[in-house]
């Protein structure tokens, strides 16, 4: 290997070390990673609601305060979708909570943190379970109870439309048949 080629190789290696070494601190300067956890806080007394609690922590496990967290419930209405439950701001321990009025014994909850300049976005999902006596009757946030309508209404409509089609075709056929029969009779 000639001296010139060795010098070129060393220069390239040096350049790579410089670029990687310089770029590494830039890459590390992005938002801190975050972790979200979800839990259900049961009421101490019957007239106190359940609370959905989300804890937002940074990479070291320290609570992140003053950030907004959104809560959703997974529902099936005209297909799978998320029913928005509400937003809450994290307190000094990184906990955000909203009152929860369960309409089923088991509810699938999704919690989202949209991210900020300092902290990366994150989300977590979980299933919360309440005893049967804690399930409330229909509430404004309860889309699931419309499920029977979702199933029945389109099918009723389909039957109605089919009847209209059959009726119209029958009218045409019976009218033309009667006219033709009368003509042949005459």
């Amino acid at each position, binding site marked *: 290997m000639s001296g010139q080629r060795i010098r070129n190789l060393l220069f390239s290696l040096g350049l790579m070390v410089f670029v990687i070494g310089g770029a590494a601190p830039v890459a590390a300067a992005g938002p801190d990673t975050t972790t979200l956890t979800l839990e259900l806080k049961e009421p101490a007394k019957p007239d106190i609601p359940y609370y959905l609690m989300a804890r937002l922590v940074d990479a070291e496990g320290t609570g992140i305060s003053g950030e907004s967290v959104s809560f959703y419930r997974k529902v099936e209405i*005209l*297909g799978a979708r998320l029913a928005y439950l509400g937003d809450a701001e994290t307190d000094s321990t990184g906990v955000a909570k909203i009152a929860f009025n369960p309409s089923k014994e088991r509810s699938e909850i999704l919690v989202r943190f949209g991210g900020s300049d300092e902290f990366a976005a994150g989300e977590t999902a979980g299933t919360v379970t309440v005893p049967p006596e804690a399930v409330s009757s229909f509430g404004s946030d309860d889309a699931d109870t419309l499920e029977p309508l*979702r199933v029945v209404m*389109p*099918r009723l*409509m*389909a039957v109605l*439309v089919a009847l*209209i*089609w059959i*009726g*119209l*075709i029958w*009218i*045409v056929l*019976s*009218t*033309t048949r*009667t*006219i*033709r029969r*009368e*003509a*042949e009779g*005459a």
Partner: protein
Amino acid sequence: MSVWSLDARWRGDSPSSLDDASVAPAVSSRRAFLLCVAALAIPVAGGVVAYIYQLTQGLSVTGLNDEVFWGVYTVDLVTFIGFSYGGALVSAILRLTNASWRGPISRIAEATAVVTLIIGALFPIIHIGRPERLWEMFVRPQINSPQLWDMVAIGTYLLATLVLFSLPLIPDLARLREGNGIGGWRARLYRWGSFGWRGTEVQRRTLNRALTIVAIAIVPLAIMVHTVLSYAFSLTSRPGWHSTIFGPYFVIAAVYSGIAIVILASVAYRRVYRLEKWIDERSIRFLAYLMVAMGVAYAYFTFTEVTTAGYVGGREEAPVLYGLMLDRYAPLFWGFVVMGLVVPVLLVAFRKTRTIAGITIAAGLVVGAMWLKRFLIIVPTLAPSLLGDSYGSYTPSWVELMVTVGAAAAIPLLLVLLFRVVPVLSADEIEELNDQVRS
């Protein structure tokens, strides 16, 4: 029956009998017919070419964008299907109420309903970027999809309008079976399509009963189907659309513009084929009265919509209303109010302007203004972004405009082709109504 022709029209002659008048477009000069077809086929061909260009290049050749994702195509869909509902409702309601003046205009109203519906039903397909996937709706229907139900609604309505158009043809085709000077395949069609009609008591009773049932069915069907079309807007949570009055608002708009298009078609056939004796001024004037009544009702709905939203002035509604009435779209909105609501009503209200010419101008203004109103329902509502304070904009591209012009030209083209085959006047019905009036 004598064979009346366009040569006679050039001499200033009017058809001498009702049967001659009903087939006037069918027996007129072949050269004039072909010239007319060619003149109308040019813009239609332009529209087809523009659509093929869109098909190859994608929807980026339209003015649609992330914010204003519905534009002229949706305007055309609502407008053309609205024309159809108007034509069918007029025919059905006048038949049910046994209005004696309906005879001369019922065939034109029914044909207009069929033709405009066929053209309007093409726009959902034109609007989608991948029309080759349409068949998926048939082989994998999603029963909860509004798109599927739109298709079902339009298909059902098309069947009903075809029935309403074709059943009254039976006695008229029977009149043309022999001795009308029309031979060849059209003569064979008349023989086949008349089903041996002899006008016996039983045949008349059967036909009238069937027509009454179809007319009864088509009124709620038209109302429901156009309401389903309005659901495409009102069932969204978008400010400006999420309104309970949208169903009746759309239905009234459809009848208003539908009557206007029936007036235009009737006046055109009346003038070109010298049918003044048969499509009398009274029928056109009564149609104009109906149109004005619908116009006043539509003005009331517009006032209610604007007042309800403007009085509360909600955070989301206010920018839509401001853009519509006082800012970017204000010239179009107030132009619609003047040209689409005020001037047509005034033209029909005053005896001096309540002439065929005045009514025709009023109907033309209504057709144009109602297209503009559909544009104002769609674009200004989509322009304010739901994310932040940005304000989108939309200008139709040449592709969209060419497709629109082509579709608009396709309506008279299809009518010209249709009335080359079937009688333009419902001669049997006119005679029956005249007998009723005399007795």
